[in-house]
């Protein structure tokens, strides 16, 4: 952590960056995103298990973009998000300094995007193990059980869109749910509207989800909606052998194809 603080100070003092995006401890003891612009305040920075939010989400927010050059504290999911954002032309890699954090919470030396790519390549890019277990359980259910399990979850949804807002890949300035000509997704938070919203969100993240789980974590009513995108991330790997967020050049699975893509259901 001291390394992180001293590096942050160095970057701010040398004016290499205008802001360091990291974590601080809030009044209730939770860690939360922090934006350090003054090296004197860099001591607030923390890094430990509490630091869960995917900070990459801020890289596309207007008021954060205004900072210009910035440094960001990044564990694997954040790095993968950054890769996706660069590949989708939302973030310019040159404007970013990556303060990489390893699995054992030590500061990594990520000098460039290609170094970051090298680091990512060495990591396990599958879904987190606890989610893998739940997915395995769900996949064992019958279709009827799955349907009622999810309907039960969706019944809680209030359409606050915290799942969308917390997701670094949901950076659209106008989401499909906000399109009303035609009204693709029913506006109201009822069974129908909620179900179609979650289908839409998952499909839009197919091949783009980097398995950070932030959507599920953000949900105020506890819908594990991250399982939907994670299931698709699994399937993307199964079908196409691609992990999202591993290259700054990659096009997502649904915008590319191979002529010999295999499926078994088209007659």
């Amino acid at each position, binding site marked *: 952590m001291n390394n992180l603080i001293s590096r942050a100070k160095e970057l701010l003092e040398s004016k290499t960056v205008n802001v360091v995006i990291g974590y601080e401890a809030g009044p209730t003891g939770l860690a939360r995103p922090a934006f350090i612009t003054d090296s004197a305040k860099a001591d607030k920075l923390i890094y430990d298990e509490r630091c869960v939010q995917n900070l990459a989400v801020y890289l596309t927010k207007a008021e954060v973009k205004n900072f210009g050059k910035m440094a960001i504290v990044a564990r694997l999911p954040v790095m993968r998000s950054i890769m996706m954002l660069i590949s*989708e*032309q*939302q973030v310019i890699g040159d404007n970013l300094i990556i303060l990489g954090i390893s699995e054992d919470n030590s500061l990594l030396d990520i000098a460039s995007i290609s170094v970051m790519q090298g680091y990512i390549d060495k990591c396990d890019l599958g879904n987190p193990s606890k989610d893998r277990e739940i997915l395995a359980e769900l996949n064992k259910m019958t279709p009827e059980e799955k349907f009622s399990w999810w309907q039960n979850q969706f019944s809680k949804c209030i359409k606050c869109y915290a799942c969308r807002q917390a997701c670094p890949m949901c950076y*659209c*300035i*106008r989401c*499909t749910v906000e399109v009303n000509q*035609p009204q693709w997704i029913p506006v109201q938070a009822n069974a129908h509207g909620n179900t179609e919203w979650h289908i839409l969100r998952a499909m839009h993240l197919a091949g783009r989800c980097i398995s950070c789980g932030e959507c599920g974590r953000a949900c105020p009513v506890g819908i594990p909606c991250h399982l939907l995108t994670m299931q698709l991330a699994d399937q993307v790997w199964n079908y196409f052998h691609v992990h999202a967020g591993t290259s700054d050049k990659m096009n997502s699975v649904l*915008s*590319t194809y191979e002529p010999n893509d295999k499926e078994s259901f088209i007659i």
Partner: protein
Amino acid sequence: MARIGVFVCHCGENISATVDCGKVAETIGKLKHVVLSTEYKYMCSDPGQTLIKEAIKEHNLTGVVVSACSPRMHEPTFRKACAEGGLNPYLCEMANLREHCSWVHEKNELTTEKAIDIVRTQVEKVKLNSALQPIKVPVTKTAMVIGGGIAGIQAALDIANTGHKVVMIERSPSIGGHMSQLSETFPTLDCSQCILTPRMVEVAQHPNITLYTYAEVESVEGFIGNFTVKVRKKAKSLDEKLCTGCGLCTTKCPQKKIPNEFEQGMGMRPAIYIPFPQAVPNRPVIDREHCTYYIKGKCKICEIVCPTKAIRFDQPDEIIELQIGAIVAATGFDIKHADFFPEYGYGRYKDIIDGLQFERLASASGPTSGVIKRPSDGQIPKNIVFIACAGSRDPAKGIAYCSKICCMYTAKHAMLYKHKVHEGKAHVFYMDIRSGGKNYDEFVRRAIEEDHVNYIRGRVSTIYERNGKLIVKGVDTLLSSMPVEIEADMVVLATAGVANSGAEELAQKLHISYDSHKFFAEAHPKLKPVETNTAGIFLAGACQNPKDIPDSVSQASGSAVKVAALFSQNELTREPLVAVVNRMGPPLHSTCVGCFLCQAVCPYQAIEREDIKTRDGKVLKSLAKINEGLCQGCGTCVALCRSKSIDLHGYSNNQVYAEVVALLNEY
């Protein structure tokens, strides 16, 4: 407020026999915004069309639904009628009551109900149609012909003779292509060079043709009428203006042991060389890969001997950018080489050669001055075997197609051999003789009957050497169905014709499609054999599939006409059914967020990047922008766009959504 007119066609009895057209018209007439719903026996007839034209005026219609046959049949008819009636043609839709309803269902209420559903769906759709204007794009009246073989030469001359400018690109040092390598041509046995050389010279001298040899296409951007092509002129190491083509350098070059491409490796050439005596342009180039100076840093003998001091060792490659309106791809073919046939011993035994090598052996200008001498010891072969279909029509070898030209040139080879070696025996192994074409079969019969070539129907399993002979093991499936063994002195393989090297890369640069064999794909196998799927790019010759000379020339002339037709217009009009990215005022400008995933899905590279800038040039936002000239309207980008910022004219989100709702709900 929308004012929709609906016209239900009986199509004689084709529709009315199973669909209650009266009920359809009546039910649809009750729909909101439908101001006219009527029926008629033949909507496509003159009176039928007049009905529409008059109704448009009388009822002030804002949309028309013609409920008749398939739009694939008569959509243009009725759109034209609407236009003549004063309605924008894109405000007309067709409901397919014939192919999709009356012809495929029995006469009953359900069928009529389905018909009503179909018409209602189109009514709801047409309400959301917008008046579209055809897209107009200017035309640059310069054509580019890629490839200087006979197809390219023909296309270039034909286009140039219509008065338009042509740029010809040829990657080797001379134009002429494979035809210049041939000895004589079937079915007339006239000398290939004799008929080709005048054409080559004509190209070089034509005022409308600019020729770039030793040049390759670097990149192609743009769209029909408006291509920007970058061409790499490879360094010839020569000042062409100074060079007189005297050829002194080529005789003095100390490096003389380079396999001669023109002779199919059966002769040698120096490092500075003119590919063949009749080459156009008749100027040498230095093959830098083999030149002693480029390898070792010293030599420069050519520079010393050159009387006009034309050698330029430090000449760089040059990239030139050209504005082009249409492109003819005429990059030709190649034949399958060497290790493709291990069982036939090609590459292992010197006296097994391919068809093009035999052409050179038989050519008066070839390495043996036209005497058929076998490569190993220069002996004249007494017993020669020709194998047709060496690789072609052999799915196991990955080439299932017929190479088309082999039957004919094998007959020609056997004939030429017999004409030159009277006492020799010629055998031809064949699968079938495909000699369709004017005077073609007669030609083959002549080989068999007059020149006594021994045709054996059957395939060869293996060739091996024994006692100095090539043992050709095959089967005669006509007479005995028994194995045949021939002790040959030389074997000629009519190897499969394949796509030229680099075809795939070029297709990708041109953004045209190609088949699994890398042959360029035509837009339609029957009705658009000259066009590609990319508007403004045409095909000529064997780059599409193996072709003989007359076919190549015909297609080349065909493509020239296509180019000329294109150049007859000052601007092009295209169907406006293209995608569009929404735009609005600042600060949003568009809901497009600029992820550019649509660029990846677009098969036509029709999606460009547009930067919205402040007055002082700062980029505020980058958006996708559809190039209307390139977009073909497939809509794949529309379905992909997460923020629904792209829409498709004619199949807009609003329209297709309304169709789904209208199809399933009663109104």
